[in-house]
């Protein structure tokens, strides 16, 4: 009887205790992950959240081959830099790629559709970057910032302004590539469906943000290296204005000159003595030419889509990877003969910017997918100016900071804006800037041009020689209306060996079909329906 009662008691007791007390166990909170509240309560973790917004340009996610930011079939191939670079360079005369990956080759054949997977990756990536910036800005309203001590508050305010700069940069890339795009700022929260904004209105948004930021960010060269300052803001404004006619129909060459002048007259920047040093791992210490860079570190900041991509993908055939400070090549990127032919002496002996590898390679490209077809490029290296290899001993990941904005580009932009009739500059100064670049390239004055040589077509060619593979060729060609038209043909343009003109609607990429489906507010760009 005793035992019976004991059992009965046990059972009844257990029943009551468990039923009453366990519902609160359904409120399980993350153990490893943290919530936004804890991240944004600490100046240290706030800076780490800022590092994400910057890192969004270079990294694929929270780990190098897992935990991607974007749902991509291959983690490594989906980063902002790599996707932007591919969309800017592969459809042009500057670069071809050998890889038979998915629909990557559609960049060459120029028959991309709203379903193109690689384009969708890029589309998703640029809007991920904007979302990251929006989230950072949203979580740090003035009321929140004022709760920190004065010096922390000042720093955090700068962080927030840098996030606004990064958002402006991404929005510029977005309208440059995708035209009329979904648009949202920090004021719309998670779950809100964004509206579509015209290219013109986003242009105005980016412009106003940057005009505001130019007074708020640190002076040129005064921020930590890798973080944006006034120089970065001015450069982005200059680029926005140089291409303004494409976006808005209005010429802004004068404004372009204004901001080129601000950069140049700040005296914070000067040309690197040696062109090759700009693309080596100590590029930010060997000169003061770089205005804003996408940073890389072979040990602490690894990605298959920062400069690691650019260095590895360019190596193949009989090239020795150790000459480039890496463990191997990916056998992908070469140039078309159109770019190669821009150099009157492509050997590199006179114009040192001609950095080609020809041994075992053919000049003409019979087969896009064969690395040996087309000359290879030796411009980007994971070694220092003194020949020391990068920090990753296995040679998998590069240390090379990619120069997104540099003074050489500003000189050419100034010259072009002057030639396009902009006020505030003059042809003689423009000629001086162009010749400064050519003097550096030739090591002497033999490469100099005269005032009569300085024409718009010359500037485009010179941009090819000076800036090839630095991203931006598609934008340049569109500004000159040569990207789609039959006026200028290069090998494999439009997927034809001898090149062919293609329809003008291809000047703007389509919005990703996945987004059109998910967001009924969006209307596809013309020509893609």
């Amino acid at each position, binding site marked *: 009887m005793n035992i019976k009662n004991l059992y009965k008691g046990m059972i009844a007791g257990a029943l009551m205790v468990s039923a009453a007390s366990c519902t609160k166990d359904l409120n399980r909170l993350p153990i490893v992950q943290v919530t936004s509240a804890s991240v944004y309560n600490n100046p240290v973790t706030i800076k*780490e959240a800022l590092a994400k917004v910057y890192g969004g340009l270079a990294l694929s996610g929270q*780990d*190098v081959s897992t935990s991607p930011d974007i749902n991509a079939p291959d983690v490594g191939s989906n980063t902002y830099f790599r996707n932007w670079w591919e969309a800017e360079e592969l459809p042009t005369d500057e670069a071809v790629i050998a890889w038979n990956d998915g629909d990557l080759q559609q960049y060459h054949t120029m028959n991309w559709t709203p379903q193109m997977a690689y384009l969708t990756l890029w589309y998703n990536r640029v809007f991920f970057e904007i979302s990251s910036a929006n989230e950072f800005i949203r979580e740090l309203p003035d009321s929140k910032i004022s709760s920190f001590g004065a010096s922390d508050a000042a720093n955090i305010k700068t962080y927030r302004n840098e996030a606004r700069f990064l958002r402006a940069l991404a929005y510029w890339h977005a309208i440059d590539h995708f035209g009329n795009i979904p648009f949202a700022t920090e004021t719309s929260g998670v779950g809100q469906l964004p509206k579509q904004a015209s290219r013109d209105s986003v242009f105005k948004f980016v412009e106003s943000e940057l005009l505001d930021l130019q007074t708020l960010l640190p002076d040129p060269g005064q921020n930590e290296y890798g973080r944006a300052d006034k120089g970065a803001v001015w450069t982005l404004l200059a680029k926005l204005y140089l291409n303004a006619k494409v976006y808005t129909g209005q010429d802004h060459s004068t404004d372009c000159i204004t901001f080129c002048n601000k950069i140049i007259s700040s005296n914070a920047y000067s040309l690197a003595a040696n062109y090759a040093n700009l693309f080596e791992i100590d590029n930010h210490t060997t000169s003061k030419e770089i205005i804003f860079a996408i940073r890389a570190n072979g040990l602490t900041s690894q990605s298959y889509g920062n400069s690691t991509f650019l260095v590895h993908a360019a190596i193949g055939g009989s090239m020795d990877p150790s000459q480039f400070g890496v463990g191997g090549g990916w056998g992908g990127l070469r140039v078309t003969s159109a770019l190669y032919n821009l150099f009157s002496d492509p050997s590199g002996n006179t114009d040192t910017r001609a950095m080609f590898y020809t041994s075992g390679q053919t000049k003409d490209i019979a087969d896009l997918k064969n690395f040996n077809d087309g000359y290879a490029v030796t411009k980007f290296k994971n070694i220092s100016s003194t020949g020391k290899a990068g920090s990753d*001993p296995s040679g998998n990941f590069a240390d090379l900071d990619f120069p997104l904005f540099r003074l050489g580009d500003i000189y050419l932009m100034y010259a072009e804006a002057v030639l396009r009739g902009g006020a505030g500059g003059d042809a003689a100064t423009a000629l001086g800037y162009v010749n400064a670049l050519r003097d550096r390239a030739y090591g002497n004055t033999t490469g100099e041009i005269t005032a009569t040589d300085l024409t718009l077509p010359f500037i485009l060619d010179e941009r090819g020689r000076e800036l090839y593979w630095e991203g931006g060729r598609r934008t340049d060609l569109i500004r000159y209306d040569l990207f789609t038209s039959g006026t200028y043909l290069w090998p494999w343009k439009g997927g034809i060996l001898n090149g062919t003109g293609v329809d003008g609607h291809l000047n703007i990429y389509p919005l990703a079909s*996945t987004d*059109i489906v998910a967001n009924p507010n969006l209307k596809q760009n013309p020509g893609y329906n």
Partner: protein
Amino acid sequence: MRKKRLLARAKVLLLLLLLCLHTFSQNRLISGKVTDAKDGSPLQGVSVIPVGSARGTTTNAKGEFQLSISPATKSLVFSSVGFTTREVAIGGESVSVSLVANNSSLNEIVVIGYGTQRKKDLTGSITTVSAKDFQQGAISTPDQLITGKIAGVVVTPNSGQPGVSSTIRIRGGSSIGASNNPLIVIDGVPLENITNSDGTSSISGAPNALSMLNPNDIESFTVLKDASATAIYGNRASNGVILITTKKGKSGGALRINLSSLNSLAVKTKDVNVLSAGQLRQIVNTQGTAAQKALLGTANTDWQEQIYQHAFTTDDNLSITGGVKHLPYRISLGYLDNNGILKTGYLRRKSAALNLSPVLLDNHLHIDVNLKGTYADNRFGSSGAVGEAVRMDPTQPVYDKSSPYGGYFEWQQGNIPNVLSTRNPLADLMLTRDISTVKRSIGNIQLDYSLPFLPELRANMNVGYDISKSEGGKYIDPKYAGSYTNGGSQSAYSQYRRTKLFDFYLNYTKELTSIRSRFDLTAGYEYEDFYRASPATATRSVTGFNPVNNAPAQTTYGLPDSSQSTLLSFYGRLNYSFNDRYLLTATVRRDGSSRFGPNNRYGTFPSIAFAWKVNQESFMKTLPVFSDLKLRLGYGVTGNQDIGNNYGYLANYTQSTATTQYQFGTTSYYTYRGEAYAANIQWEQTAAYDAGLDFGFFKQRLSGSLDFYYKKTSHLLLDVNQPSLSNLSNHVITNVGDLENRGVELNINALAVTSKDFTWNVGFNFSYYKNKITKLSLVIDTTSPGYQTGAIGGGTGNQIQINSVNYPVNSFYLYKQVYDQKGLPVEGVYADVNKNNGKNLFYHYKSPNPAATIGFSSQFGYRSWSLAFAMHGNFGNYMYNNVKSNLGTFSSISNPNNYIGNASTDYLHSNFQNAQYFSDYYVENASFVRMDNISLGYNFGKVIQKKINLRLSAIVQNAFVITKYTGLDPEIPGGIDNNIYPKPRIWSLGVNLDY
């Protein structure tokens, strides 16, 4: 103490066995007659067997028998199909017995969720497979015991690795984005999902969470298929439920000791067809560049021969069962040493299980205690070696004395290994040591108390746990080319998992003869909590530096993982039977899950089923041929909460690893990422209908069931695209889609022959099913083809399957190959199937899911001999031959990267220069029939002092496969064949001793 003595006794018995196999011959003659209890008519063909012997006799037409028995024989067993078996003590020299007719299989008690039921009272689609019908041979994981045994249950081993997991699908998958694994319940303890959302084992370091259970301890599998049976498991039941019951002691039973040893040799069945050294040489010499010709070697290496071995496996088990008064017990020990055919890999498992099932308090309290413990050591042969052996140049030697890479030949680039080239597969195996030690214990105590003052009312409490600890590590020799420049690599990981269960229910059963009704009511509460933790991992260099430039090597870090989820549920069931003809079952479960936000936390899952025992009707009494005829109709709603993320509804942030920081100035900063989330995420719901017919003829000598079902899953949890800028990633898991599954299932069992010397049983099952996606997005979208999936080897990020509305899950999505007049594929030429000038060449092709599956097994017995086989087959399943698509090209041999590769012999047929990953040429019909096992056994009867029964068996598993598929194996889950660890053929010899 007792246990020790028993063990000692077992040892003595073994010794005795080795001494001699001797029989005595002081037999005596006994005779008798067997009659039918109903009318006293003689029964012919009744088997009469002395207890403890294999040799008996059967009765003649007059029901009489005569038998010579040994003096030790105390009783005889009388059995006949359709009658209850009787054991009768031998008094004098004659024995007369009457047998009572029964529907034996119908009186079986079947385990159902939270209780048991007589088979004849079942209203749902439930199939039980017990130990005697399991697959035979060297089987290291429980899931493979029921391969091909149950209609609508497809068990596909993922490879031939020791202890490998299987993909288990009951009535197809009910989900796309969430788990499709059935819920597995062991002795009333529901287990955590056996796989993580990425398909890996939920127990780190164990190739398969179920490999931590000894199959020899399992008594039966009961599979609940339709919603009326599964709905009592509510939120985890959408993919069916498998109830595993382990072996128990028997009340009042005598001490029994069983010792078994099964020893096997596994051999590979065939090779992937690749070019021979001679063929490769000829191709390079005629088509290669000068540089490539210079790379050719002089050797003649069969790389696939190098990496595989004949692998020995032993599986030894000892079990002791018995009952001391009211304490039945079973103790078992098992040892498995399972070596893989891929060199270096093994699974060594030690397991112990204890069951105590005492009955106390005048039969009012039934206690059931189960404790299982397993300790497993694993070594994983580097799986990359399988593909490397296929790709490696056969003109190169295995070893190279001058090689700095451990003496193995490797491709070089300058003075470092060529990173793009194929690594030496044997070096990969031999210079890599990937090991783990996993401990797991599952236990429960169940108290079942019927109240003395109200015996119709039972209270049942079940408290259980499932704990595992894993530790593992991978060591890569600094000399291995794959990590040469990092100075080798060493890493370690660990994991702790804990599941807690508390379950309590009340059951009230009442027979009201006045209204010819029987009520059986159950109401209960269950609490289950799942916790797991694994610390951050680090991968370090062994030597600490790069031997080429002496630079310090790097360390990489993985992310830690720790999470917890809780389920809290109330459930109830009513079984009502009227006049023993009309059966009604209604269940309801209300579940709360911590995986969902407060607004969506609870879900209610009802079911109702009705059955009509047609054969009980008076008009059926005139048709005695029917021993069973029951019509079943059922409907129910179940849920799926296994979405892979425990906190999907919450906004949270993830820190980066140390190698994924971002640098400002000279300092690197960790990054914090806000994760995308869907605050309103909720259950997937599957509404299922089932109509079934159970039938039995000739006193159940022929029996079976036929089921039709239709399942519709809504609120399908899918990883779907998010509108840009509306969330923190481009995708989030949320509820958007709908999916349908429908099918037919047929199970037939027949006792074809049962005579004195000869018995023959046959089991056959067939199922046909179809699934279709009916919705994938909130906004109906006609332009989007759907979500691509099915990553393949070759290129970067290529996917060849798709989930599209109106198509089956994971349909192939490819280009339609154009063939020339000779029937050969034309490289790069595809049909303009969408008639849009080749802008989009993709089209939906076949599906990897089988349309029909069959299982067929047969057991013959002749005197002391037994011969059995089991086979199963799939029809209408298609496979993408990724080995051919990746390697059947000239570019697979020739590349500009300073090494030679090998190619699939398919290159000789297609003559493709470059890979054509998206050609439907590579999709093949992979219908097949596989002979799972053929076993031959001989029962020697009592051999040592008439006390020990000896049985020997010889078994061959995976005896043959009939298929048109040209790859290695037509049976691969997912339909993509890319260098799978091959399933071996296994030859086994078994010895079984019973005391």
